[in-house]
């Protein structure tokens, strides 16, 4: 009997959602939470809208010292961890620390803090030889993102496997896959798994401006992210974190835990094509989907809902639509597909975990969150993208996909946990 993986706790910090419940209320009501950037003075940049969290570390209980030591991405992850552990009703004093671990996904780690401190060390970019007299003692934590996973592990007292996965914009899926893998193979019974990123800082905004990947639609932030719409013109940068408690199935059952969903399978493929470009046919993402479905022992026809990458770039939305048609066949045309990035933007290595949380909550609620801002369908696409309004549906098998710089294509299959035995 192979070991199974249950999601038993969810914590979310997202734009417009200070916790998992607020997050679900937001996305299930089709409400966008994008705004003009407030985290820094962004008027000189091409793209000036973002999905920002109303996140105050002091209110969240972080000490003055912790706020200085931890990058915003680490703060978001630890806050989401606390919520997930409470939601799972997990008493961390009774679980075996050796059998408990943490995997976090992040594309850029503590870049926001490095960006800020570089400005100090270089005296505003004037000096190449930086002045170490002005260095704050936490720079190493900002540089090496594994410090975020360590913060999460210390929060719950985990002494099992701890790692930070950094496959760019698929890291939030890959970290959850990795945690599920560790539970299945027997290396752990409980994993804190999720993703975090806080990229709303000058260097990140500038780097995406430079390749025109983010939207220049600054005049109406709420409609700036419009996946699958014919008028889409780039993604909206965002921040956030979602953390999940993953448990070995029998471990969860034995303590009477509430099970949101089961992680049935996953797959990942490299496209070996281009660091930022995608092959038009979506072959590698299709393969990742097929691998994930096979592991979950599900046929393509059993997929009830696809939570898309849906980043709102011309290229991505066409690429993954092709991948769905290729992997699901005719079933793709009758399967609801939606992108919650239409409401909370694209938080890089966090978003995959936030979307997995959305899938688990959707299974629980029997409700598919919509694609907001989709008014003018793109004739090149042609699937059912659940525009504007949430749709009730019995969800037994849900497919989550992601795609990122570096050529990573990820897929995960979540099920309602029934029908396997």
């Amino acid at each position: 009997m192979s070991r199974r993986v249950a999601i038993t706790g969810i914590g979310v910090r997202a734009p417009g959602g200070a916790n998992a419940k607020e997050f679900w209320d937001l996305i299930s009501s089709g409400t966008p939470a994008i705004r003009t950037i407030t985290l820094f003075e962004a008027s000189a940049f091409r793209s000036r809208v973002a999905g920002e969290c109303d996140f105050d570390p002091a209110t969240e209980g972080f000490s003055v010292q912790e706020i200085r030591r931890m990058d915003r991405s680490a703060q978001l992850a630890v806050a989401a961890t606390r919520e997930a552990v409470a939601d799972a009703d997990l008493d961390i004093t009774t679980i075996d620390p050796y059998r408990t671990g943490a995997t976090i996904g992040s594309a850029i780690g503590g870049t926001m803090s490095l960006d800020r401190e570089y400005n100090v060390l270089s005296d505003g970019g004037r000096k190449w030889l930086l002045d170490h007299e002005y260095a704050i003692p936490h720079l190493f934590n900002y540089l090496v993102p594994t410090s975020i996973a360590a913060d999460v592990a210390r929060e719950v007292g985990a002494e099992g496997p701890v790692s930070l996965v950094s496959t760019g914009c698929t890291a939030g899926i890959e970290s959850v896959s990795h945690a599920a893998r560790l539970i299945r193979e027997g290396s752990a019974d409980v994993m804190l798994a999720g993703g975090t990123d806080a990229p709303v800082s000058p260097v990140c905004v500038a780097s995406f401006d430079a390749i025109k990947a983010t939207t220049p639609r600054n005049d109406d932030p709420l409609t700036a992210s419009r996946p699958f719409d014919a008028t889409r013109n780039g993604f909206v940068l965002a921040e956030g974190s979602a953390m999940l408690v993953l448990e070995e199935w029998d471990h969860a059952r034995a303590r009477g835990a509430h099970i949101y969903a089961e992680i049935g399978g996953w797959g990942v493929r490299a496209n070996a094509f281009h660091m930022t470009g995608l092959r038009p046919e979506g072959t590698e993402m299709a393969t990742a989907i097929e691998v994930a479905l096979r592991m979950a022992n599900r046929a393509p026809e059993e997929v009830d809902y696809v939570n898309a990458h849906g980043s709102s770039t011309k290229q991505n939305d066409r690429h993954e639509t092709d991948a769905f048609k290729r992997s699901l066949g005719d079933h793709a045309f009758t399967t609801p597909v939606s992108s919650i990035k239409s409401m909370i933007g694209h938080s890089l290595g966090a978003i995959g975990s936030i979307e997995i949380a959305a899938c688990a909550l959707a299974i629980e609620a029997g409700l598919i969150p919509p694609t907001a801002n989709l008014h003018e369908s793109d004739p090149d696409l042609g699937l059912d993208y659940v525009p504007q309004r949430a749709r009730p549906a019995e969800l037994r098998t849900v497919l989550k996909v992601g795609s990122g710089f570096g050529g990573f294509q990820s897929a995960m299959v979540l099920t309602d946990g029934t029908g396997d035995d």
Partner: protein
Amino acid sequence: MTETLSAPTRRRAVITGIGAVAPNGFDTGEYWDALMQGRSGIARMTRFDPAQYPAKLAGEVADYDVRAHIPGRLVPQTDQATRLALIATDAAVGDSGLDLGSIAGEQVGIVTGISAGGLEYSQRELEKLWSLGGEHVSAYLSFSWFYAVNTGQISIRHGLQGPGGVLTGPTAGLDSIAQARRYVSDGLSVVMCGATESTLCPLGWVIEETTGRMSTVGDPARAYLPFDTAACGYLPGEGGAMLIVEESGHARDRGVRPYGEIAGYATTFDPRPGSGREPGLRRAIELALSDAELHPADVGVVFADAAGVAELDRAEAAAITAVFGPHGVPVTAPKTMTGRLYSGSPALDVATAALSMRHGFIPPMVNVTDPVPADQLDLVLAEPRQTSLSTAVVLARGGGINSALVVTA
């Protein structure tokens, strides 16, 4: 939980190619020769003038003709860390004798470890951002800095369409090789894995200074002395190794003799500070040996993490002694000749372990002359030690994480 009746034949992961690039050797052969001759790559930093900083020594990879090794198109979009990864990967592929054209792209995976990303690249772009403005930032920045860069560039260069992964942190050189073993166990034929790193720019330097663990001693022969009574911190270096890991049957079918097998692995996390609980390193070693179905007595050498900081060395010595007994196993740390390469070091140590088995010599940890007696370690000092090796254990630590990997001949 143990399946004894119908256990499927385990798919074993073997090392069939090594590409090392180190401060004391630009390729695997030169590196191994340096180890056997005790030749160090540590010297005063030349990439920039370190005069104003407390630490001044580093292990720099010797200057090389970038355009002779890196396709012209990639030169403006790659940091040194990524160039070294591409060079090491090319060397590993060459060493393995694999004809990648004859293997379906989907059968080949890639997983790299990294701690810092393309750091010098990012320093240059940060300088433009803050001194000139956002519109001056390179179109390559978004993917030349981030931690996934090496996996992405290697997969594109070699047409790898199997699974791709990226693990981070000082232990990631080991963790990535362990992940490759999982990929093989899942059904892949070949996985490229390992780590190369470079943080030798002013930004990396200042960041490392803040750890308070960099050695400020000016004599290259006295600056990085792990397990020595004169331990005074570590020196940074650049480089690492990429490996070709292959399913054992796949290697056998093409008539290749592997360097060794990735036989066991484990990773643990240290308890919360102040908990009074034992650090996790001993448990990582024990779990890795158990994973390999081996006993401490089977092990012929331990490649230590060798922090060069007295307190950390003491903790590592205690863990090794707890598992193997006092003077129970030869212990070495050739990184005294390269400096610490972040994620690159453990990957290079695995390469070195494989080479040690092949050649029948344990490389020394030069410069260490006065071992801390209480550590009770059988250190391989000054000279290589000739011995027949069947099993090596490689250790890596950092940020609370402890990883151990077992290589068998």
